[in-house]
């Protein structure tokens, strides 16, 4: 499973999911913390839609952690004050980088969590769609 997809599932999914995967790695491997969770900034680059040019919208506060597992570095970066999640993201990233055996069956778990996110998102959307305007012509 690619990094873009798995990091979205970990961040948008249940906090319990990331915690459980991290626990699996912690129980079997030594985790070396290269950089403790720290707060930093990420500048957002946006494409505006009038001239389709790029500009900087502003910065977002992020929490970043770096760890090493089996000689492979993992990075955890997430928007907001998220020390625990940032650490868990780093451990899981390192696990995938090191191709640890646990990661061979994780994709199934990720897919289940992804389906849960899709269902929740769909429920949220259904609620918003209740505010969709049904225009009626006044002269009809």
């Amino acid at each position, binding site marked *: 499973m690619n990094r873009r997809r798995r990091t979205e599932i970990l961040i948008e999914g249940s906090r319990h999911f990331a915690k459980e995967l991290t626990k699996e790695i912690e129980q079997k491997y030594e985790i070396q913390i290269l950089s403790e969770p720290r707060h930093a900034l*990420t500048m957002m*680059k946006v*494409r505006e839609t*009038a001239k389709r040019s790029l500009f900087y919208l502003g910065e977002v*506060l992020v929490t970043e952690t770096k760890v090493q597992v089996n000689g492979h570095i993992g990075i955890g970066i997430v928007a907001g004050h998220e020390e625990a999640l940032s650490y868990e993201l780093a451990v899981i990233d390192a696990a995938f980088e090191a191709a640890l055996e646990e990661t061979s069956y994780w994709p199934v778990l990720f897919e289940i969590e992804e389906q849960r996110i899709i269902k929740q998102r769909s429920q949220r*959307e*259904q609620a918003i769609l209740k505010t969709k305007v049904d225009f009626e012509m006044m002269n009809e």
Partner: protein
Amino acid sequence: MAYAAVKGGTKAIEQSLDRLTYERIQSKQVIDIETIKGTMRGLIDQVMSESSLYGEDLAALAIKQAEGNVEEAVFLLRAHRSTLPRVYYTKPIETENMAVERRISASFKDIPGGQLLGASHDYSHRIMNFELLKETQSDMKKWLQSFLQAEEQVEHTTNLQCLPKVVDYLRQERLFPEVEEDNAEPLDVTKQSLQFPATRSERLQILTRGNTGAVTSLGYAAIRGYGEVHPTVGELRVGHLPLTIEHPTNQTQNDEDDYYIGTVKVTEVESFIPVSIKKGQKEELEFEIGYGIVFGQNETKAIAMSILDYSLSSEGKKYPTEDEEFVLLHIDSLESSGFISHLKLPHYVTFQSKLDSVRKIKKEPVSL
């Protein structure tokens, strides 16, 4: 009277700061950050927008410390921002990927995907709700339960993750000209001083972090008579934008290797502005687009930004709202409040000098 340099006031300042703490807590009411985040959505959005720093927890803390004073909260956040390292830049964010929560158009009744009112004060009666004085936790829980149960009963098929943009539809219909993607690296006003003429990227960055009141007032002036803009809101969207960054050391150009880091809530506006273009002997009507985007749900500011974006791109420079220096150098919260506030600092020497001049003139005999 001779001039004398003075110092002192340390003890008075210490006492003043204690007095400030006293004013904040003397009612013995404690407000926690979660309560501010959960109940003051509009205030948090405004503070984050003017601070140019997206972080709800930090904004809530700044609001608490500043006792709800927006100007002070923005000052605190800007100061805090300067202590944090900037470690990453996101990949270009394409706003068509917004997870939409609200989307309206004043230009077209029927837009692809439809108009979604979402959550807005626009449709409320603006009558004081005195029932809120008696609101209880159990009332809220009951209301939420019934609202969430009702939500599950609706069925729709529209995907709000990628609603088509009105402007793209008009470009496809050849009503608006096609525009090529411009991938030039933007300039960053937080890294280098603004030079005139400003680039489009600098202009948009300053407008989006501008003081809400200042941006709104100047946008209003531009359409009221101190400008030549007559816009219609083509599309206004509120929703969350996904953020991704590249791997810091292993940049593969493959989007699948990116890190997803979360979302930010924004309001985005495209205003359609009719302009007359001279083509030979004839004048033809065309449309220009004014662009606005701000952190959080702050629709008035986003619309005003779109008006000023267009005003500042006009070549006329007939009105103050078309003058980059006038607009861009005066709308920043911190710069404007900082300069006005500095007037409270001791100006004893400069003022005494002026006073001496006045005394001298008064003593001189009046010549007839």
